[in-house]
């Protein structure tokens, strides 16, 4: 028999193992493969540039400049998106409206995530009566359809906050109200998810180990369990932005959302149904922008969900 060859030459290239990838690398690789999600992310970036960058090109005064002699003009070179019922340029209003709509989406989600995570984590971690109490409350809020709650809260809290002036720009007080009430009515969904995660994760050995070494509860929650349940929270938050933008659009459309002079994509559509035939540009442009934003976020969220799903380990 031959002398046993050197070990290294026994192994062809397929035997050599690739170095193991970290979770973050794995996630990024899988996300990258989801080309549509990448395209969506780019689209979103462009929309942000449109809204916030556009604010540099077009002044807010121009967006709010009314000239009733120019009302309801079809798209033209002077007004690429046409003018609205009081002669304001729609393109400019979509720029500033975009800023507000996008901002509402992000901040409302912040509130919603904060509330949802805190409540869900507390319920899931402590269990027992805390859990029952919190979950009963969550169920109660969850079972009242969001839009009805919003309509009532908007009517009630609507006038309470005065107009704010931040960084030289004036915002209607209703903006703050809307952000809060959207955030405060959207958290139950996330709270349930977080609770489910905590319920299952707290049985794991690493939690036991942390407790055995005397780690405080708050540390266990925030530094041990929470990072492990980050994936569904991230996905939920992403999709929550879309939901918040849509919700704001609905309620502004009904006239109960953000009030003038602050423009949002939603309130630009208010009353547009009276002009469906005569001035379709009133609702087509803001509507398309909302659609594009929500669509991109949904694709992005989908891609994130695939990438972050711990069940599939393949690259």
């Amino acid at each position: 028999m031959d002398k046993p060859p050197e070990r290294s030459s026994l192994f062809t290239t397929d035997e050599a193992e690739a170095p193991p990838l970290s979770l973050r690398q794995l996630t990024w690789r899988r996300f990258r493969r989801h080309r549509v999600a990448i395209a969506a992310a780019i689209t979103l970036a462009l929309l942000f540039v449109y809204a916030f960058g556009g604010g540099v090109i077009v002044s807010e005064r121009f967006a709010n400049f009314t000239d009733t002699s120019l009302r309801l003009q079809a798209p033209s070179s002077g007004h690429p998106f046409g003018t609205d019922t009081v002669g304001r340029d729609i393109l400019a209003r979509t720029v500033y409206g975009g800023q507000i709509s996008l901002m509402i989406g992000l901040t409302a989600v912040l509130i919603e995530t904060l509330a949802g995570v805190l409540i869900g984590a507390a319920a899931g971690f402590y269990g027992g009566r805390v859990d029952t109490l919190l979950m009963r409350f969550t169920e109660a809020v969850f079972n009242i359809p969001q839009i009805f709650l919003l309509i009532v809260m908007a009517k009630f809290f609507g006038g309470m906050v005065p107009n704010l002036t931040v960084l030289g720009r004036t915002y209607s007080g209703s903006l703050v109200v809307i952000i809060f009430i959207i955030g405060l009515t959207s958290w139950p969904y996330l709270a349930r998810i977080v609770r489910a995660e905590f319920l299952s994760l707290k049985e794991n050995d690493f939690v036991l180990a942390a407790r055995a070494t005397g780690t405080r509860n708050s540390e266990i929650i925030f530094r041990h369990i929470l990072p492990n349940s980050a994936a569904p929270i991230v996905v939920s938050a992403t999709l929550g932005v879309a939901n918040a933008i849509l919700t704001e659009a609905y309620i502004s459309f009904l006239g109960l959302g953000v009030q003038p002079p602050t423009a949002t994509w939603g309130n630009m559509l208010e009353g547009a149904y009276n002009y469906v035939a005569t001035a379709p540009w009133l609702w087509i442009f803001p509507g398309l922008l909302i659609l594009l934003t929500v669509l991109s976020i949904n694709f992005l969220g989908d891609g994130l969900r695939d990438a972050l799903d711990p069940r599939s380990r393949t690259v």
Partner: protein
Amino acid sequence: MTNLLEVSGLTTRFHTPEGTVYAVNGASFEVKQGETLAVVGESGCGKSVSMLSILGLVAVPPGEIVSGCALFDGQDLLRLKDEELQAIRGKDISMVFQDPMTSLNPVLSIGLQVTEAMRVHCGYSAEQAARRAVDLLDQVGISDASARLGEYPHQFSGGMRQRVMIAMALSCDPRLIIADEPTTALDVTIQAQIVELVIRLREQRGMAVIWITHDLGVVAGMADRVSVMYAGFIVEESDVDCLYDDPRHPYTLALLAALPRIDRRRKDRLKPIRGSPPNLLVEPHGCPFAPRCEFVIERCRHENPTLQTVSTGHRIACWVDIRGGQPK
């Protein structure tokens, strides 16, 4: 006696985003009427895929049956259309799968699942099929069968479910049963019961059995012939006694050596096979076992040995005669 099933040169690949998986590479084996063939090998060596390929149960994208021939009753199963295969599946050739917990439909009653094949293939009415089902369940050792027809899989234990699967497979009196690791997911004691059950039924009905397993202990108790598979290749094929008395392929030797044995001294350590199974994403070149083989020579790494007969009914695919340690 002619072969009931004769498979030659079966090659199946899967086209995945990560590349092509070379699952089965030119496998050949035969089963005669009433004979029991055991197909042995590690997980992932292509045993299951071979059987699924024959029955047309491999999803054709991403799978692809590149070449091969599977003669059954004078017909090449690999060339038949799905409708034609449907007439054979469950009727002439049945299959029993590995995991009884997931192989039965959880929302349909046991009665329905056992009688389905009979009603489709043998034209029985509902009552006839139900009566036969009770009979079958009885034969496989399920007590109080007629009462349990209306029950659901979750109301049966793992061992019982596997018995139900066997009953299902027998329902149309098939000539060949393919059992894909039917006892792997069960306790050892239940395993023994199932094996005994199959042996008994086999004697009663005279059907042929292909028993896929990675457990050489089970093989010794019930097979007539054995095929050893590695990385999608058949590397040794012989009568069962011959395999244990006179293994000729290094892999078979290593498998037998790795078995824990009751008659060895306790101080001896178990002998695992060094190295790890090959990456099926790489097109096989040379003998697949070469990287792990004790008897490897230069030729092994470049040329893939084909199956050669070394004595009656005993074939191996190897360049080296392990009895003397010399190349053949």
